[in-house]
């Protein structure tokens, strides 16, 4: 707000700095009903509020559009009007921190989980989290995958010291609902499959990865998820290898290698840790 003595007729106004103007415009763009920006706009035959609304709409269209690109399944599940309303509220509370809009919207699943109007859709936040993980995998850096036969040159005694580096497009995601089945059915437009999903709490781990052919989403059981978390955290093979179930562990490791889920490894002897 301008101070009461400030009036363009008197010429006593302090000329606002560029930073002042940009703070006011930014706030008015994001906050419905905020009119601070209007005081800076030149008057003419067109109402200043109507001029400013063109920018409000552009900003909303761009940022809501960016969210819709990252969350196409959430959009379909809730309908575009509901999505617009939720996304506009989200945009005002969490404006982007970067001009790269591929990175925008990571807090949307948490926002939806606490959004009262979406409370009836208990599985929505899980589906949103899966979509964000897919979005992150889609735009992950282009790092070559470790060759599946990369370990064959190691001496037998070195295997236990191997610490893997996960590929940047690979993510493990815990979900409470069958988010993967819902996500797939909606993407495929398969109403029958969607109708056949029993929406009940069924904790699960998903592994999400970008492959040459597109995004792959697979389920892991509890052991596989525990081992994978350790592998992707760079814990040495010798410390993870279970005494029992070693055949299942080796099969999982082979699958990770064959699927290109590692970017590299280190087998240095280190300090024995």
């Amino acid at each position: 707000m301008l101070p009461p003595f400030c009036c363009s007729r008197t010429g006593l106004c302090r000329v606002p700095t560029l930073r002042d103007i940009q703070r006011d415009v930014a706030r008015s763009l994001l906050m419905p009903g905020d009119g601070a920006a209007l005081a800076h706009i030149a008057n003419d035959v067109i109402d200043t509020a109507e001029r400013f609304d063109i920018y409000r709409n552009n900003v909303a269209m761009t940022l809501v559009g960016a969210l819709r690109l990252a969350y196409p399944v959430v959009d379909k599940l809730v309908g575009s009007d509901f999505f617009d309303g939720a996304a506009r509220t989200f945009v005002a509370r969490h404006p982007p921190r970067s001009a790269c809009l591929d990175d925008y919207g990571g807090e949307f699943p948490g926002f939806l989980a606490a959004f009262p109007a979406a409370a009836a859709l208990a599985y929505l936040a899980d589906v949103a989290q899966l979509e964000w993980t897919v979005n992150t995998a889609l735009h992950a850096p282009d790092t070559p995958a470790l060759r599946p036969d990369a370990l064959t040159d190691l001496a037998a005694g070195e295997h236990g010291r191997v610490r893997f580096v996960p590929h940047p497009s690979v993510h493990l995601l815990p979900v409470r609902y069958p988010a993967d089945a819902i996500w797939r059915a909606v993407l495929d437009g398969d109403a029958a499959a969607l109708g056949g999903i029993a929406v009940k709490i069924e904790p699960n781990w998903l592994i999400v990865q970008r492959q040459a052919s597109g995004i792959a989403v697979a389920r892991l059981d509890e052991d596989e998820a525990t081992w994978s978390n350790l592998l992707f955290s760079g814990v040495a093979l010798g410390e993870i290898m279970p005494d029992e179930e070693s055949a299942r562990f080796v099969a999982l490791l082979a699958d990770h290698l064959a699927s290109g889920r590692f970017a590299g490894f280190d087998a240095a002897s280190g300090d024995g840790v």
Partner: protein
Amino acid sequence: MQGTIPARAGIGLRFPHHQAVIAQRPRVAWFEVHSENYLGGGAAIRDLETVRRDYPVSLHGVGLSLGGADGLDVAHLGRIVRLAERIEPGLVSEHLSWSVSAGHYLGDLLPLPLTEEALDVVCNNVDHFQEAMGCRILLENPSNYLQYRHSTIPESEFLGMVAQRTGCGILCDVNNIFVNAANHGWDADAYLDALPPDDVKELHLAGHAEKSLSNGAVILIDDHGSQVDAAVWQLFGKAVQRFGRLPTLIEWDTNIPPLQALLEQANRAAAILLQPHRALPRADVA
């Protein structure tokens, strides 16, 4: 910098046309892309690298906020620099606008108050950008739907002063001049005449839409959603007369039609570029 952009017609490459361009390799002289769409890994940048093998590419930024009072986002600038290292663009350009305040990106090219203070801010930011890129950049005149009470410098003069102080070039968007002239009562011909001709290095063309307001007035919206308007083609002819033969881009960003429609617009621009004009022939932009 490799991959000089020729003084011919190019088109803005958007995602819906990636596969058609890669498969058909259409006869067009060059492509321009929005830098912010190619900052990650995956399919988008892989496609762009494929296109780059066959065509010169210009990087056109929409998010650096050269008019931002807080200075540039160095992390974002670093990503633009790395993209340029990967693509080796023939030209790099951005807008006379701002889009970031207090660390928040607002998703639009917002108008600047045209004051001495803003001139200092823009020049400092352009200097920073050019130092990081190691090349001269082009600064584009934006489309605007409002003006500020405190502006004191006409936009065409403001651009000329930035070019003079920083050594940057000017990207003259002919449609934006037409839109602003209609929206603010400017004289489009006088705007062209006020730009320093030797600093203008690229031209943009696009379609715009009319929006009716509550009092019956009409405002033009630079939506890049249709063919170039007849009056804008006419203004383009005047721009070519004044600035000579320059790289000229067709932009189409909403209601994107099949690639062929863009190629037809580019052919029309190419025909106008070939007409006799003041400064034949003009050297390609380095």
